[in-house]
């Protein structure tokens, strides 16, 4: 068991993915009236899993470098995908109700992950201060 284990790394990745997703959703909202615009989204599950499956790890560029389990040395970029959907007459495919709902949901999930990181760190603080934290 390490201090900063895979859970922390996964949470970190989740925060990263959620933030990018929020940006993608904001991008969709910004283009709600742009003709021909196709909205995009981030598949959170696959994005977090790709990282957990070995994408996270310290870059060992020299032989003397140590590897660290579950640390986020090289973080893979978050990829986005187009969302197919019905287009309006002007070719815009943004479903604003759904985007706003996803926006709210994603922010909540982000808060949850951030809170969990907080708790994780609180545990470490407690241990580091001999139980007096």
């Amino acid at each position: 068991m390490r201090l900063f284990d895979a859970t922390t790394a996964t949470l970190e990745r989740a925060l990263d993915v959620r933030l990018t997703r929020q940006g993608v959703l904001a991008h969709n909202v910004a283009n709600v009236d742009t003709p021909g615009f196709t909205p995009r989204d981030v598949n959170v599950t696959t994005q977090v899993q790709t990282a957990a499956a070995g994408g996270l790890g310290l870059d060992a560029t020299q032989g003397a470098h140590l590897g660290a389990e579950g640390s986020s040395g090289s973080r893979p970029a978050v990829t986005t995908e187009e969302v197919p959907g019905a287009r309006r007459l002007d070719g815009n495919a943004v479903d604003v109700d759904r985007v706003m709902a996803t926006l709210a949901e994603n922010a909540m999930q982000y808060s949850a992950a951030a809170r969990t990181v907080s708790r994780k760190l609180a545990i470490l603080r407690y241990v580091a201060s001999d139980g007096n934290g």
Partner: protein
Amino acid sequence: MDFFAAFRVSASGLAAQRERVDIATGNLANAESTRGPDGQPYRRRDPVLEAVTFEDALAGAETPAVRVAEVVQDPTPGKRVYQPGHPDADAQGFVTYPNVDPVHEMVNLMSASRGYEANATSFETLKAMAQRALEIFR
């Protein structure tokens, strides 16, 4: 993606919608202007919104997510009203009024205002997330 890039995405959406409001308001204000700087009746204007791909928006710090690419003039002819006493009446006594339809402009105005609200909400949500991220250190 960092928080500030995400903020800029929402900000560009706000700016684009505000410009739509400005243009619709300008059209409404000039609904009866029978002469402009060129002596011709006012022609209604329409903004053309252009999307920047998400990857481009991420790459360039200053690139907005959406922008008003150009403002075009509506070429449809305006309505002609018989007003022989009007100073802008032509030889037959007809005055050409701007091609502004107040109902159309009001609908545009409503749509832009809702779009602005949606962008403002997405900005607020992002702000709450940034706040939450800062609280990790507490």
